[in-house]
């Protein structure tokens, strides 16, 4: 479940933990790779992906939210 953090790229700056509107990284400490404590509460607005200075985060869209097209 989203978001997915690339541990090799992440420098533990804590930006995503600071800004996540839904606080899905609750309990994470600065200096460490954030833990995704509440993946179900992600709104997929992409704030963490967009603001990550290391481009270490991507979202995996859950299957019930798959985009339907013709």
């Amino acid at each position, binding site marked *: 479940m989203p978001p997915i953090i690339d541990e090799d790229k992440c420098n533990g700056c804590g930006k995503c933990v*600071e800004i996540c*509107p839904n606080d899905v990284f609750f309990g994470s400490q600065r200096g460490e790779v954030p833990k995704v404590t509440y993946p179900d509460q992600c709104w997929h607005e992409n704030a963490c992906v967009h603001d990550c200075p290391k481009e270490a985060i991507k979202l995996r869209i859950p299957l019930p939210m798959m985009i339907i097209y013709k």
Partner: protein
Amino acid sequence: MELEKKQCDILCVGGGIAGLMAAIQASESGAKVMVAEKANTLRSGMGGMGNDHFQCYIPEVHGDFDFFWKELFYGQLVGTLQKMGREYVRYWFENTFDIVKLWDKWGIPMKYEGKYEFAGHGFPGKQLNHLKYSGINQKPVLTKQALSRGVEILNRVMVFDLLKGKDGSIIGALGISTREDKLIVFEARGVVLGTGGCGGIYPSVTVGANNNRGHPLSVSGDGRAMAYRAGVELVDLELTGRHAGPKYFYRVGQATWVGVLRDRLGKPIGPYLTKPDRQYHDMTIEVNKGIFEEYKNSGKGPIYMDMNGISKQDLEYMVHWLKNEGNMGLLNSLQEEGLDLGKLAIEFQTSDLSVRGGIVANHRGETSVNGLYAAGDEVWGTISHAAVFGRSAGENAANYVTKVKAVDVEAEKKTAIEAKKAQLEEIRARKDGPTWSEASFALQQIMLDYCGQVRSENLLGAGLDIVGRLKKKASSGLMAENAHDLVFCLQTLNLIDIGESVLTSAYDRKETRGLHVRVDYTLTDPLLNNKLHLVKLVEGQPTTTWIEVE
């Protein structure tokens, strides 16, 4: 649970567009201002990842105001505009251009390729009033402006109740930290509510994805609920709405899509477009947001937002605005799947039911409680509305606080504060009991079954009984494992209060109007066309009244 006291002249609850604009203006007017934001003002709320359209009047584009005014009453907001009343709407549009200039100066690009660009939300041939703007960084910009004026921003603080003095005016508010067990007592002579919309009352659009909504669960009607408990009127809560957007990755912002709505065989479903038009878009969706649901239920099948036929230039144009309208997650997902948006027909769906009605406040932001102001989606919707009335509320609150004395809130409300602290500690201490999500799902189920798309006295009466039982169980039994869960518990209790007031209002509106379909009162009563339906707590009981639109 630790207790902390904070003192300011004006507390802005919610650091969205309305809250930050209020804070900026109040601070400029000389007040000591704090913003309490449940998340972080840099990215919180419905404007957190940007918006791309700002409804406004620009003299050099629109010419005569009276003509602009006449043309305004088309499109998806027409019903809302009529309910706002003329003075309110006039104030709104007489002040939008000031904000456009201000935001542009502050670093939110309000021009596209050097000029004011209007598109979307408009019928072919009619005047356009939605300015396209690049709002992806609007929240960092507004945050910077607030901080530079000395506003103190308290991120990760949820304000959940208002405190009134002996004379009934506001003297402060209560909040909690969302990260640690801490109760915060605010002493403030003015409070501006700007907590936004109201998600989470009805089930989401998809099974198994509770947060797949136009309004995320974190936008939970906190302002409405605390204002209601403080005795302020809420308006037209029962006139629930539905929006439309991409399926199943649901987002609002349908007017950013440049495509033609077509059925599975490729036939346009509406009369307005046969090929993508970047200026006017397909207005069929605004005439009837429910059309996707109707096609599904009747077996006519899916409806697609079909981008086939769009030029390369117009595709780039659309993608630029989708990025600014908070659709980056969706765009990235399409890209990862290797899909070419220009050749894609994405199915659209009608959204979950949502509560649209809000707090009754005038164009000065004043509510019926002295010292309490409200602005933004808390009152009515849209971005420019939040900006104009947030600023107005901030200015008027700043004037108000110069005329009233501060009250020692800890002394005056000692018993109430201690009782609230004890309640929060109980929720945190419980080892067994319903979680917030249980209570939330229970509420959604009750609201859908008893106050959904079919309504009657029998259903609504039963719904009121059941939501009353849920309220008792939730308020006496919820448990929270940590500060984060405690926030959700308080949000859910807020939503239950709003649910109760929605049911009360729906029970009392004995007519059918829009999505408020009463099978026992099937006619729309023309005598109610110009009336607002208010609900407020009187001696603990939800009570309804009607007033004329001014």
